[in-house]
């Protein structure tokens, strides 16, 4: 695919001798929302964490195969560079508890020691919070600790923190599984807005969510990429019987 921003080629991931991601070939096109779904323990989160090299931080974790970002192997680049270009949002909101809302958003610059003029910092904080649809709620309390926010607001703060670094790709690992329905829908709306500027890869075990937010969906089962297709196509006309069983709720 010409416009693929990330391309995984015969990609494998292991925990020790446990083979958790098996020979995955997948192209992720630019400015799309890709949903990665599958039952628990199917390797979807591991696959996601391989894209920004978070997987290898776990002792005993290894990978094999190619993961390309613009035709460059991610595993030959410096992991710090990779993570600057590929941001991540986690399952549970994890704002830095010692920093204010403002400092949380600018954390990627501030903690890295990148000096910016105050006007630039203010601009980055405001635009990131606006993109994360949080600006109106926090603009008067920017210097309060981020941990005083509600769970859904904290998660949007984490999204703002990730997009402040202007990544090309944003990985989201079940970003709404710890949130209530209202926060969930506000984050889903946000994903729709975010794909104008970024490419999103979202792990979810909620099929409805995958159907609502994504352009393409990948279905993982027991570490294999079973099916990867246009979301509508996948949900209306699955090619593989395992996909069909999963979608119709015969196993979860």
């Amino acid at each position, binding site marked *: 695919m010409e416009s693929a921003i990330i391309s995984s080629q015969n990609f494998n991931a292991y925990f020790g001798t446990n083979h958790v991601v098996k020979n995955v070939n997948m192209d992720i096109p630019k400015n799309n929302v890709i949903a990665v779904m599958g039952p628990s323990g199917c390797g979807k989160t591991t696959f996601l964490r391989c894209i*920004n090299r*978070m997987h290898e*931080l776990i002792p005993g974790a290894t990978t094999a195969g190619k993961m390309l970002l613009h035709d460059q192997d991610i595993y030959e680049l410096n992991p*710090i*560079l990779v*993570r*600057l270009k590929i*941001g*991540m949002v*986690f399952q*549970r909101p*994890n*704002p*830095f*508890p*010692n920093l204010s809302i403002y400092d949380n958003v600018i*954390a*990627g610059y501030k*903690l*890295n*020691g990148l000096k910016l003029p105050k006007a630039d910092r203010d601009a980055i904080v405001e635009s990131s919070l606006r993109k994360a649809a949080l600006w109106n709620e926090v603009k008067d309390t920017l210097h309060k*600790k981020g*941990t005083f926010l509600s769970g859904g607001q904290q998660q949007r703060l*984490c999204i703002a*923190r*990730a997009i402040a*670094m202007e990544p090309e790709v944003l990985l989201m690992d079940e970003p709404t599984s710890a949130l209530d329905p209202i926060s969930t829908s506000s984050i889903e709306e946000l994903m729709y807005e975010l794909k104008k500027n970024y490419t999103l890869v979202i792990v979810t075990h909620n099929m409805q969510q995958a159907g609502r937010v994504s352009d393409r969906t990948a279905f993982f089962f027991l570490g294999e990429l079973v099916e990867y297709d246009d979301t509508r196509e996948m949900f209306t006309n699955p090619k593989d019987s395992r996909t069909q069983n999963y979608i119709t709720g015969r196993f979860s």
Partner: protein
Amino acid sequence: MEKRLQFRLTKSKVFQWIIILFAFLITIPLIAIIFYVLKTGLSKISWHFLTHIPKPVGEIGGGIANALVGSLLIVMVAAIIAVPIGILCGIYLSENKSSKIAYYSRLAVDILQGTPSIVIGIVVYFWIVKPIGTFSALSGSIALAVMMLPIVIRSTEETLKLLPDTLKEAGLALGLPYHKVIMRVIVPCGMSGILSGVMLSVARIAGETAPLLFTAFGNPYLTANILKPMQSLPLLIFNYATSPYDEWHDLAWGASLLLLIWVLLLNITTKWITRKWKVQL
């Protein structure tokens, strides 16, 4: 059945009262010490007492300025030596929970914590005082630093272990290098625990006498040269309390009260810091 239940309820009641009694009893030694030291020491403390050095036997007056300055200096230098080493070692132990080095390091720390302070004093005497050829405040600081280390290391380790891994991942996912994640995310979040460990270890060594006997040695004059023998509060108390002179006993009581206040203040500040710096996760 009714009777047996009654009996069991009574047993519970008795047990409850016993633990309340003991919780109350353990405050008695502290209250007794504070009361007695206050009663005998308070009248000795004055501005003169704090700003003058001891007078020779027979002369009235004199103070403990030399010991006060000495104690502050010796403890400060000990902290400067022990705190960075202790925190870094604690970081290693919390980051590498199951490595071989961590296992032996943790074992060493535990044994060090149980090592009698007099033994540490003697070892420092043979390794530092003897080769250099003179008693010095610095050697006393080194002995005290060795005593501080286990407390700083273990409190750092325990504090950092309690922080969730997601915090570290948040930093790494932003493209922060490992050392920045540790120094700018993990350590600040654990600051209250680390600081309280440091304060408690300072409180612990402030009153140590044994390690200083063969190292800082004591000095009847005021000095700020850490390469020379130096007086300190516990040494002064030890030497003067065992002397036959009443004037010196008075100085020892005053110094005891001062030391007690110092340690109490450190403990109270620790509690305050822990609350103030506590990071809400």
